[in-house]
């Protein structure tokens, strides 16, 4: 019983390959403008409660992964196996597979597990990151139940030659280097970015499972990443634009043992992927057409020499997306599109079978602004998987704006998540997939407001936003044992509800800019129905790895090219089992970080030097039981940029 279980369980939590399938558009738009921006769907939606990473925080995070950034910002709840380990995000009490991660509009989650490992998303490859909590983004389709993370690349024509290099190094053998060469005139942009990231993560921690308690060094915890992002844009005429992007990345991890384990782990994981994207845009006064094709190949190798385990898996996804954007209407805009996604999975655990599926989705969005006060947006998406229709995913948002800028909105939507390849096809080693799983569906409603007050005379700005939501997920898929055999079932109904608030105050005095911002989330997510499960213990209990309280606060002062940022993020106590047993709860933690940055400029050169102190108060904490996080640690970085504007 144990043998089979072990092999199986080894297989599941660490097999977190990322392959992308995407049903979303990548659209290059605003052809008349200098800036090329991706992903148009956002323009058809009404802005709701979003968390936007500000540009300075993004710049300061150049050496970080998206996981590190979200951890520090306290956006949503980051679930991670220690620093550098597999990390996923959970929003509004939903599961790790309930967040759609989009790169230039292409959904990059794995069809095997429905997850995206955020530790494999380097921030140096994203020019913009937007976190949209809640289900109102249901036009993005599969997996957008809890929210979406949108990573976009932006490019500017007519910039000339730009060369950027960034270097950073710090505690525990952390080293990062990034380089970019970009050239653009009014017709072409070509940009190549490459990075190397290495960390030993062999920090000291207090090992409370030892007797007597001892200070140990984390072992077998290193990671190494190498990646390249190549982008090209060509404006053929004032109506036609084509672009091509290619992202390659190699990620190697040592998979550490639980800190309580008396023997070091020997397990390793290697993820190698590439994501290629080509697009064409046609722009006319009355409509825009865009077409994108993406191909993704992702290979994962997990090996544990201690038990002679080698597990390989490979996924391929091909996405084609076409959409038309109608611009002729005065007070309205509309989009209609079609997406075709083909995906395939190859792994020993699917037996001889190399499952593939064809997914076709139709979507449409409409936005109406009858006057300055009112906005109404609606959208729907209907997806067929191998000819079988999924529940339709509609969304409606209404917004009312007062003359003073304060706005209120209400939004309601239905979302869905289709079962993963593992859910449907896994066989062997104690697990048995379930080919008759239903698609998870959810219904969510939220209301919110945004208050904005600006005083030009006193150079100050105050912003305050809030949202209250309710979201219920039906047919939630979970693996559970039956007669020693684990299999996935549509096991439960989960109801999550909560409150989110954020605020920012900015004040300038001559050359000095100061800001204070905070955000807080309250999340209650409970099992409301366990269908035919025999264990009723979990009914009405908070989902595990879902803290009720989370938040962060940031103070920043900038003057004369210097900036000082102090940030604290709080993660409340979280249960780690379905009974909400307090003895197994992961304790709350408040972690503070400090950044110092100085920008420099000299002729064609600009740059900055940066120093970072993480966990400044040396707080002892675990990201989850058995996975300690480092105490106080340091990082230093330098950015150098050479820019010679184009004369063409």
């Amino acid at each position, binding site marked *: 019983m144990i*043998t089979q279980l072990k092999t199986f369980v080894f297989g599941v939590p660490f097999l977190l390959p990322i392959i992308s399938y995407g049903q979303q558009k990548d659209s290059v738009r605003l052809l008349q403008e200098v800036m090329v921006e991706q992903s148009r769907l956002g323009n058809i939606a009404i802005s709701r409660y979003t968390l936007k990473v500000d540009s300075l925080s993004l710049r300061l995070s150049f050496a970080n992964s998206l996981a590190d950034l979200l951890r520090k910002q306290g956006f949503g709840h980051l679930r991670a196996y220690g620093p550098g380990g597999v990390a996923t995000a959970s929003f509004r009490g939903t599961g790790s597979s309930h967040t759609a991660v989009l790169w230039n509009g292409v959904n990059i989650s794995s069809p095997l597990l429905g997850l995206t490992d955020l530790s494999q998303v380097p921030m140096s490859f994203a020019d913009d990151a937007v976190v949209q909590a809640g289900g109102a983004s249901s036009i993005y389709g599969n997996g957008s139940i809890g929210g979406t993370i949108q990573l976009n690349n932006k490019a500017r024509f007519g910039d000339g030659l730009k060369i950027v290099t960034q270097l950073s190094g710090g505690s525990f053998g952390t080293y990062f280097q990034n380089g970019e060469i970009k050239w653009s005139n009014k017709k072409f942009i070509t940009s190549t970015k490459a990075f190397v990231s290495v960390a030993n993560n062999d920090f000291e921690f207090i090992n409370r499972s030892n007797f007597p308690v001892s200070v140990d060094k984390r072992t077998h915890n290193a990671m190494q990443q190498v990646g390249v992002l190549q982008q090209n844009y060509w404006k053929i005429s004032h109506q036609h634009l084509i672009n091509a992007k290619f992202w390659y990345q190699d990620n190697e991890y040592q998979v550490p043992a*639980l800190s*309580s*384990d008396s023997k070091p782990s020997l397990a390793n994981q290697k993820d190698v992927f590439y994501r290629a994207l080509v697009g064409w845009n046609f722009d006319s006064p009355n409509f825009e057409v865009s077409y994108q094709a993406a191909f993704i190949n992702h290979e994962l190798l997990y090996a544990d020499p201690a*038990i002679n385990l080698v597990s390989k898996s490979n996924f391929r996804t091909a996405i084609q997306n076409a959409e038309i954007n109608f611009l002729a209407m005065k007070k309205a805009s509309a989009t209609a599109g079609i997406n075709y996604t083909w995906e395939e999975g190859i792994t020993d655990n699917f037996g001889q079978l190399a499952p593939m599926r064809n997914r076709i989705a139709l979507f449409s969005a409409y936005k109406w602004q009858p006057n300055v006060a009112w906005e109404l947006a609606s959208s729907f998406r209907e997806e067929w998987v191998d000819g079988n229709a999924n529940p339709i995913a509609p969304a409606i948002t209404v917004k009312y704006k007062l003359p003073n800028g304060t706005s209120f909105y209400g939004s309601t939507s239905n979302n869905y998540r289709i079962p993963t390849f593992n859910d449907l096809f896994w066989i062997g080693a104690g697990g048995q997939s379930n080919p008759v799983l239903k698609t998870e569906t959810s219904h969510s409603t939220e209301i919110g407001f945004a208050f904005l007050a600006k005083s030009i005379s006193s150079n100050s700005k105050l912003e305050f936003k809030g949202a209250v939501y309710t979201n219920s997920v039906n047919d939630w898929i979970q693996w559970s044992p039956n007669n020693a055999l684990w299999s996935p079932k549509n096991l439960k109904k989960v109801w999550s509800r909560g409150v989110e608030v954020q605020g920012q105050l900015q004040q300038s005095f001559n050359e000095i800019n100061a800001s204070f911002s905070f955000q807080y989330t309250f999340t209650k997510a409970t099992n409301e129905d366990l269908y035919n499960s025999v*264990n009723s213990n979990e009914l009405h209990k908070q989902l595990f790895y879902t803290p009720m309280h989370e938040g962060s606060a940031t103070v920043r002062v900038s003057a004369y090219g210097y900036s000082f940022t102090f940030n604290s993020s709080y993660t409340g106590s979280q249960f780690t*089992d379905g009974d909400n047993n307090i003895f197994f709860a992961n304790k709350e933690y408040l972690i503070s970080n400090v950044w110092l940055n100085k920008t420099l400029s000299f002729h064609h050169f600009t740059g900055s030097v940066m120093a970072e102190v993480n966990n400044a108060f040396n707080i002892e904490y675990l990201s989850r039981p*058995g996975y300690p996080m480092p105490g106080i640690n340091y990082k230093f970085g330098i950015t150098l940029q050479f820019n010679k504007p184009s004369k063409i």
Partner: protein
Amino acid sequence: MIRVFKKISFLLIISSLLFLQACEKTPDPVIKTGEAGFFIINEGAFGKGNSSISFYDRKTDEVTNDIFFKKNGSQLGDQAQSMTIHEGKGYIIVQGDKKVKVIDPTDFTLKKVISSGIENPRYYLGISASKAYISDWGADGLTGSVKVYEPIRQEVISKISTGKGANKMLLVGNFVYVANSGGFGKDSTVKVIDITTDKIVASITTGNNPNSLQIDKDGNIWVTSSGANEYDADFNLVEAKSTKGSISKISGNKEVLRLTVDKFAFSNVSNLNMSVDGTTLYYSYDGSIYSMNISATALPTLPLIAKDYYGLALDPFNGNLIACDAPTFTSAGNIDVYDTTGKLLKTYAVGIAPNGCSFK
């Protein structure tokens, strides 16, 4: 001076008498094993580090959960496999952490953590005040052994290679029988170790993957074997290469009877227990619990309890069956207490994935 000396001598004599008296073993009133109650080992979910120990107090008829954490303020660890009381100490095998945690079975205080010489431990068997055996699968799950443990020095002093997946052990006179359950591979032997020399003196072939053993009233040893399922690449059972589960009877270090179940099953013959009088066997098979008299010549066709349990123990104090229910590995399970006729007497909530009991 002399008087002083005399006085000191007198005191010395008195105190040494007292000391001797204290050392002398006072004959205990006969306490039956399990009279005080029993510990429930909650294995927890693999890789989650959420194993725990519960204690059933027979006087109050109540179960207290998380006794290890409550007393010591730290987690027991990852995947508690078993617990054995030996010479006044409780030895908890924490397989996932490759540790043996030694507690005081009265107040549950952690006394010692043993990890040196331990690879992938399963069960502890007390042999004498100065010797115990710990079965161990080996780091790769294929090089099973029995570790010779010295309880006074609290150290593993040597190891005896036994076969794949060294699992449950049984002490009979000067010999220990070790069931090689296959570990991550396949085995079909029960090895016999002479406790005076720590050497293997016999190897008994049984059905594939023998996992647990018991002795009956006549001194015969019974062994449950889970069989071995071989699958093709599509996880279809290859019957020609697979073997079914079985129960073997061993007499004179030879298998004298093997009763084989009639179908291949994923959850196979295991969890062998013996009634207090040594006449009835209880075991798990294919999602049910069966009972069989030692004189039977065929396996029973109808289960005693038609429910899937993760573990099974027999209460030596009253002969009841304690069936460990692990409905999910994400939340707490139960123990169901049955009488020997299979009638459910009472259910107690315990920890995550209970797999067995240790009687106090």
